[in-house]
């Protein structure tokens, strides 16, 4: 049996074992319902929850904040990254600032965001944007850097225009790393929005999760955690598929 197949079987076994022991321990009462809801009960509740108006509103609020933050922050980060990557002198000047910002733990600045932006949707969106901005920026700068300068010179000597160089060389060359940056940015963005909602908010999935936790209501709490986990894992894996495609595309164009 090949190693790849053994790995796949191992992974399936471990996930199955995890879910089975979770289900078994909670069903048999080894772990009480006050501590953890059985997996199946939580999934049932999740389906019910999506039927309720309030949960749909919370889920929608969070999803729209994440989407807006991404729609504003991602293009901004990619454009800034492209400019910094192309404009070496500016990049060299701003590098300490960018590195410093990358090293700063943004999560602990949450109280200041509330002081400045209040507790509404705006604050969640801004917090999401700051979470995604720098990681996407740095990856985009790296993407520009990954374009070999000899290839630019070669294309120029063939008489290619600036736009042709961007379209034929930069776009396929940068795509994989930019997509990595966008994927990581999205993960941080979701984390930022949910954290902000858990801290202080009027609505949203984070707020709902936190309230269920405070009241010890484990069934909807577990259900919501499953919803968040499954959707982020799916999103992450889907974006990775695009990354791999872009990588193949880059190799094909490059050859």
């Amino acid at each position, binding site marked *: 049996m090949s*190693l790849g197949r053994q790995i796949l079987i191992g*992974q399936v076994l471990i996930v199955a074992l995890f879910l089975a022991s979770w289900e078994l321990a909670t069903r048999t009462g080894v772990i009480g319902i006050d501590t953890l809801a059985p997996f199946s009960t939580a999934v049932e509740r999740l389906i019910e929850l999506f039927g309720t108006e309030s949960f749909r509103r919370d889920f929608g609020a969070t999803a729209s904040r994440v989407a807006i933050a991404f729609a504003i922050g991602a293009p901004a980060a990619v454009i800034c990254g492209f400019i910094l990557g192309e404009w070496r002198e500016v990049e060299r000047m701003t590098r300490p600032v960018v590195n410093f910002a990358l090293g700063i*733990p943004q999560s*602990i600045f949450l109280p200041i965001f509330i*002081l400045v932006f209040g507790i509404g949707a705006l604050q969640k969106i801004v917090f999401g944007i700051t979470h995604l901005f720098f990681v996407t920026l740095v990856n985009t700068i790296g993407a520009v850097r990954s374009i070999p300068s000899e290839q630019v010179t070669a294309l120029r000597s063939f008489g290619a225009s600036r736009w042709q160089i961007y379209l034929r060389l930069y776009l396929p060359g940068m795509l994989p790393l930019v997509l990595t940056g966008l994927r990581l940015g999205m993960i941080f963005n979701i984390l930022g929005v949910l954290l902000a909602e858990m801290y202080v908010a009027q609505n949203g999935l984070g707020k709902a999760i936190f309230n269920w936790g405070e009241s010890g209501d484990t069934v909807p*709490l577990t259900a919501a955690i499953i919803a968040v986990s499954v959707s982020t894992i799916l999103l992450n894996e889907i974006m990775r598929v695009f990354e791999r495609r872009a990588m193949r595309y880059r190799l094909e164009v490059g050859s």
Partner: protein
Amino acid sequence: MTRSFLIKTAATIVFLGVWEGICRAGWVNPIILAPPSAIVAALYSSGWQFLDAFQLTILCIVFAAALAWLIGIGFGLLVGLSPLGYGIFSPLLTGVFAIPLITLYPLFLVWFGIGPGSKIAFAVLSGSIPIALNTMDGVRLIDRGYIKLARSIGASPLQAYLRIYFPLSLPAILSGLRIGTSLVVISVVVCEMLASVNGLGFWISYNRTLFNTGHVYLGITLAMACVMLVNFGLGHIERRYAALGEARPAKAARV
């Protein structure tokens, strides 16, 4: 060097002066930005009360970091040496790391209560994953020859792990420790901010609700200093160790 030090000191003094001036002049809402003087004053207000909070947070961090190191390194060493173990666990842990783990914190509150237990447990979870992932990567890249060497010189499994594989993968482990320990610090503070009755994060949140902006800035500055201290300290060791490994033959003398 003294010259640049002078310039930096002067720049800092000017910066603080302008900051203080802007706040004194009333150009910025005092709830949003506290002047440096208010931040310093927060140090000794209410009888150095924040020191108690800070002390508790540090204890939680030390305890959680020790556990995260032990679990992360131990798991990584055990799993990383076998291609099958690495193949199974590396993608699984990477996938889990994409989940906004903070949504699990309410569950930890249910399990471990509002005291330090829930903070420590959550910090161990979020900190040990990058440590385990980096350790695995480090161990996997060990020259397979060392495994044969260990067996041929009669090293027991424990001796082989502790005295050969662990030091050989130390550069990767150190970079995992830097990331993981930073996450431990952030996790403890953020969890305290979200729900707690004591600790630095609680102190920040509590003062935010009272609009003691100076206190909030002081607390956040301290938390950030802890993260930077970890980052800088472990980063320093990491670079020194990496330099040791890369050192080229000083005098490649005869044969």
